[in-house]
């Protein structure tokens, strides 16, 4: 049997004795309780008793208890011995209770038992709580009962010293007999819970030597000093050793300083511990071995081994399963039986249409969403008062007018006649009340109100979001230089490929070469002198290897050398060498149509000296000329030449071509594509793009303009800007469509010239109004992004002469400078 079981059994077996032990204890405590009261009383009575009682308590606590126990045990064991009976008697009430409980006798009367029960209750209270806190109701009874008890107790206490000595002697005498009861008593003490011991070890967990200098050793629960047991010297020890047969097994408790006689069990325990056995004597070290688990496979295996822990825990998988079901229920995926039954019941029930319910789901919402309040009537004014101020009353003249307007009452000042009444009571009924109410209702009913959706668009929203011009710098902002020298209006300007020089031609028949940065006229060539006409167009050969200026003077196209000051001498020499001798013409057969149109003329030496290198005579005056990007071809546009309006001259072979055989309209100008072999030909309203290699029309651009004046190709070649005399600039994105990408109306007059910058995303347009508009024209390589056109700046073009203002525009090839040929005989440079 395991030890705790045996312990339990022991407890049960000792239960019988517990009565006695309890009863034994109770009087002890009552003793203490009485001592307690005694102490109070002692304080009242005087000193004599106090010391005594204390001493008695201390000594008695040890000896008395022992003796009590011994006695009791004796009594329990044996039949009541006489001497003990006497002792019991001498003990008084304590013994009385003992006997009472033990025998449960009725002799002493109900009053006694009552009192005792109360007392014991009080005692138990005293065990747990300080004795001072006893019930007020009890105190009266106690007082009455305790007084006699005390009187009874007083006697035995006075006798205790003598009695204890007697008892000691008795015990010594009965030493052999007493061993057993002592053991029993010890067993009780050890068997009892430890709080019994705690009651005495009140010093707490402190070393005992702290109390060496004090007469007491700690305090009990009631905060009274626990006095040190009387100290014994060696003689006492010796005497005791001689006298006390239990001396050998008496040890001093270090906590209380009291002598403890070790019981037989303790000794046994010590012996077992010394020998290295299990302390519990009942422990069977040699239990038979039960083979719960064996290597042999049994047909019916023994399963009496303890269950595994998880068998006591809820199952995990079940938990998950339940969780799943609960979730499904929550989500409405599955339904409980109750719900299903409810549904079935509902299905069985008949459905009725709620005839009297509202047609809409939420009647509160009806009409509120789109509520249109009826127009309010104007508040009544002073004139409508029953007693209007006199100024509102109509005087004679107004009355006359009122009467006059009787035919047209809506023209009257009021819709009613302001009248004065002495009091509100005197106001007569309004005769038109019903009718007006009716009309008002009709108004509301017959004129349905509707919400007028009004778009709030500000003017700013309509303007496209364009970047700020400040972010698009550089662009020309001011006029910086004027090139003065021409005596007539300047028709055309052009930069040399590096931007160092400028060539210009005007109505005065001169072609002038200028230095760009200083405005100095470096050379004047009399180009038109021979032809007797002004220079319509000039163009510097775009090739860097050629120093040549083409000038259209009347019917002649002159290729001029700009002269020594303006170009590098070596370059000029090279150009001259190239142009000096005409290449052999024998392999070329020129048809009559072409030869009648353009004739390459021999340049006379005097003309050569003047700078003319090549002269080509045409049958009609030249209006426009354009260089090919490589500088070998010049495209010339002739005025009123029908099908022969466009002539392409090739310098290296000195040959002319008429690319078109049929008249497509009045050709305004023709341009080469900067990279591809294409020719842009602008007639009056349409721009046609021809492929020169395939000799076919590539596309036809419908400008929408009435009369095209000029055009310019973006250096990328995919965008074309067309200016027209009807004040428009038309941007074509050739990759986008043949319709205008954007039509810019930036000018107040005819637009005569447009120009693209070669490097910067800039273009400019100018015309008959004295404004040059510089715009930002960003062309993106990304095909998805359309060109961004932002007008940047209006430059004032000075010098307006007879409806003409700016005749030509050119951008500096490298800098963001703009050059304008003005009608006031000047060239103006803007930067």
């Amino acid at each position, binding site marked *: 049997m395991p030890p705790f079981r045996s312990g339990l059994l022991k407890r049960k077996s000792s239960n019988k004795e517990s009565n006695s032990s309890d009863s034994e204890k109770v009087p002890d405590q009552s003793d203490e309780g009485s001592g307690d009261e005694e102490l109070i009383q002692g304080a009242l009575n005087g000193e004599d008793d106090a010391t005594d009682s204390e001493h008695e308590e201390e000594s008695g606590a040890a000896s008395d208890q022992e003796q009590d126990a011994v006695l009791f045990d004796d009594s329990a064991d044996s039949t009541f011995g006489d001497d003990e009976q006497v002792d019991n008697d001498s003990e008084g009430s304590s013994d009385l209770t003992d006997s009472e409980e033990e025998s449960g006798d009725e002799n002493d009367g109900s009053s006694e038992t009552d009192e005792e029960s109360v007392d014991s209750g009080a005692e138990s209270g005293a065990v747990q709580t300080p004795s001072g806190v006893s019930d007020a109701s009890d105190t009266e009874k106690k007082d009455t009962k305790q007084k006699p008890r005390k009187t009874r107790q007083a006697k035995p206490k006075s006798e205790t010293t003598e009695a204890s000595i007697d008892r000691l002697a008795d015990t010594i005498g009965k030493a052999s007999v007493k061993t057993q009861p002592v053991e029993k008593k010890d067993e009780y003490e050890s068997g009892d819970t430890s709080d019994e011991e705690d009651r005495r070890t009140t010093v707490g967990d402190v070393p005992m030597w702290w109390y060496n200098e004090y007469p007491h050793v700690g305090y009990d629960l009631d905060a009274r000093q626990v006095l040190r047991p009387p100290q014994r010297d060696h003689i006492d020890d010796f005497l005791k050793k001689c006298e006390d047969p239990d001396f050998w097994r008496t040890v001093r408790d270090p906590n209380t300083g009291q002598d403890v006689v070790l019981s037989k069990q303790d000794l046994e325990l010590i012996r077992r511990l010394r020998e290295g056995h299990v302390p519990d004597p009942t422990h069977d070290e040699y239990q038979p071995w039960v083979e719960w688990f064996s290597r042999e496979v049994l047909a019916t295996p023994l399963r009496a081994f303890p269950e595994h822990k998880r068998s006591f825990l809820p199952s995990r998988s079940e938990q998950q399963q339940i969780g799943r079901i609960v979730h499904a229920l929550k989500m409405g995926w599955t339904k409980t039986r109750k719900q299903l039954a409810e549904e079935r019941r509902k299905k069985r029930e008949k459905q009725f249409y709620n005839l009297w319910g509202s047609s809409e789901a939420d009647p509160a919402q009806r009409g509120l969403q789109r509520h249109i309040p009826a127009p309010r009537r104007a508040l009544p004014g002073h004139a409508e008062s029953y007693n209007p101020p006199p100024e509102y009353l109509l005087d004679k003249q107004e009355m006359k007018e009122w009467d006059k307007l009787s035919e047209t009452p809506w023209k009257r000042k009021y819709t009613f006649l302001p009248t004065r009444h002495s009091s509100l009571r005197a106001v007569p009924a309004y005769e038109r009340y019903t009718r007006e109410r009716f009309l008002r209702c009709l108004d509301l009913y017959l004129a349905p109100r509707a919400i007028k959706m009004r778009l709030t668009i500000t003017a700013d929203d309509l303007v496209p979001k364009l970047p700020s011009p400040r972010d698009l*710098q*550089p662009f020309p902002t001011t006029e*910086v*230089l004027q090139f003065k020298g021409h005596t007539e209006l300047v028709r055309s300007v052009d930069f040399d490929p*590096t*931007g*160092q020089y400028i060539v210009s031609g005007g109505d005065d028949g001169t072609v002038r070469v200028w*230095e760009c*940065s*200083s*405005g*100095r006229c*470096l050379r004047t060539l009399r180009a038109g002198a021979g032809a007797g006409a002004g220079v319509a167009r000039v163009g510097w050969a775009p090739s860097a290897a050629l120093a040549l200026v083409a000038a259209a003077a009347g019917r002649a196209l002159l290729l001029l050398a700009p002269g*020594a*000051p303006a170009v*590098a*001498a*070596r370059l000029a020499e090279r150009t001259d060498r190239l142009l000096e001798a005409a290449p052999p013409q024998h392999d070329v057969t020129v048809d009559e149509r072409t030869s009648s149109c353009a004739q390459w003329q021999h340049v006379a030496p005097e003309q050569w000296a003047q700078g003319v290198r090549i002269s080509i005579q045409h049958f009609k005056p030249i209006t426009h000329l354009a260089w090919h990007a490589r500088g070998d071809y010049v495209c010339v546009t002739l005025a009123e030449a029908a099908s022969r309006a466009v002539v392409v001259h090739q310098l290296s072979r000195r040959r002319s071509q008429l690319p078109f055989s049929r008249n497509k309209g009045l050709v305004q100008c023709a341009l080469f594509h900067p990279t591809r072999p294409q020719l842009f030909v602008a007639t009056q309203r349409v721009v046609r793009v021809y492929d020169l290699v395939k000799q076919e029309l590539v596309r036809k651009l419908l400008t929408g303009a009435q009369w095209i004046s000029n055009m310019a190709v973006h250096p990328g070649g995919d965008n074309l800007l067309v200016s027209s005399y009807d004040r428009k600039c038309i941007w074509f994105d050739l990759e986008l469509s043949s319709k205008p990408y954007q039509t810019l109306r930036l000018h107040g007059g005819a637009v005569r010239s447009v120009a693209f910058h070669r490097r910067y995303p800039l273009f400019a347009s100018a015309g008959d109004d004295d404004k040059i508009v510089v715009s930002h024209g960003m062309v993106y390589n990304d095909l998805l992004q359309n060109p961004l056109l932002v007008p940047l700046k209006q430059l004032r073009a000075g010098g307006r002469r007879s409806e003409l203002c700016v005749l030509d525009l050119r951008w500096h090839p*490298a*800098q963001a*400078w703009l050059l304008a040929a003005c009608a006031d005989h000047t060239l103006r440079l803007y*930067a």
Partner: protein
Amino acid sequence: MSAEIAEVQLQVRFITKQEQYAVPDSPYAIQSNVQSSDLNTLINALLKETNPSIEKTVEFDFLTCGELLCTSLAEHLQDKGVSTEDTLEIEYLERFPAPAPQDCLMHDDWVSTVHAHSNWILSGCYDNSIHIWSTKGQHKLAIPGHTSPVKAVSWVSFNGDQAVFASGSHDQSAMLWVWNVTRNSVDCVVTCRGHEKGVECLAVSADGNRFATGSWDNNVCLWSTSLSDEDNVPAKKRSKPELGNTREPLTILKGHREAVSGVQWMDFNTVLSSGWDHLLKLWDCELGGLKQEVAGNKAFFDVDWSPLNNSMITASADRHIRLYDPRSTDSIVKTTFTSHTGWVQSVRWSKTRDTLFLSAGYDGQVKLWETRSPRTPLYDLSGHEDKVLCCDWSNPALLVSGSSDNTLRIFKAKHYEST
């Protein structure tokens, strides 16, 4: 607002770096609306008390917050955002005396370039000629040597009677000339051929041994100024009789993408060039490579370098003059001087004063600037009737400018004893 400012009293303290004009270092309370002239009278009065040896009144300029005082003090402080509560330190220095017009030298054509020396002034003309004048205004010589407008001239050296000068022209050549002063005869010693296009600018190094030219062919060329034929000139080239004595460049510095508009020597080894490609480039002559590059945002027309304050001023295709410090790594302009109303074509530092420079603009004005006064020039040297194309201050006493009105105007810097 000005009336409100006028009430303010200012605590000022006057300091100066010119010891002879020192006044007691004690703060004075003055009205905030005083002008520079009022301060001038105050300083003069103080000077009379402390230093009786100075008899005549001295004109002073006043520097506050690192800028020259041109408006009233209150406005100046308001511009600068300086509190009027603190004691203000005003530095004063003797004012640069107003240059007086001295002479007007008439040319036959536009004067494109000018260079003055101690006694002689060299000018280049658009009629392909070079002129030598004395500083007194006497026309010494007209030299028709070039076949295109002369764009750059510079004295190289004076050696007794023999004066050497260089000229660059749009005829793609630079020429070295020897002028015998006493005989008043000139001789073209060397023709420097190497540029593909016109020479735009020319600068002679400080030791006079080399000169640099910038051209429209985007190159800067370095040439030797020695009058004799060097050994490195190939024999066959020398033998060509029709070319005369030609010379090839020592080094060609290629790097500009547009025309080189200005060139200056910084030291024996470094050449500074400005281009129309919006770049200032510093070249190492020994290695023939680029040392540093400063980017602007307009085409540069001219650049000048001052060894006195190690900074460069540039004229670009707008009306501003910009001051750069090449030592600062970023290209941020240190100061912008704005007063011209047209393009500024030429800028020149003073050779003696580190804070003064001269500028010539297309508005017909030549302006004398103080670097600490970015909005107002010290003096406007007016007189030209057309675009001023060039200016020069190589002779500290002469401020020379050439214009497209065919005149060369000389202003005399008055006696000035700061050095």
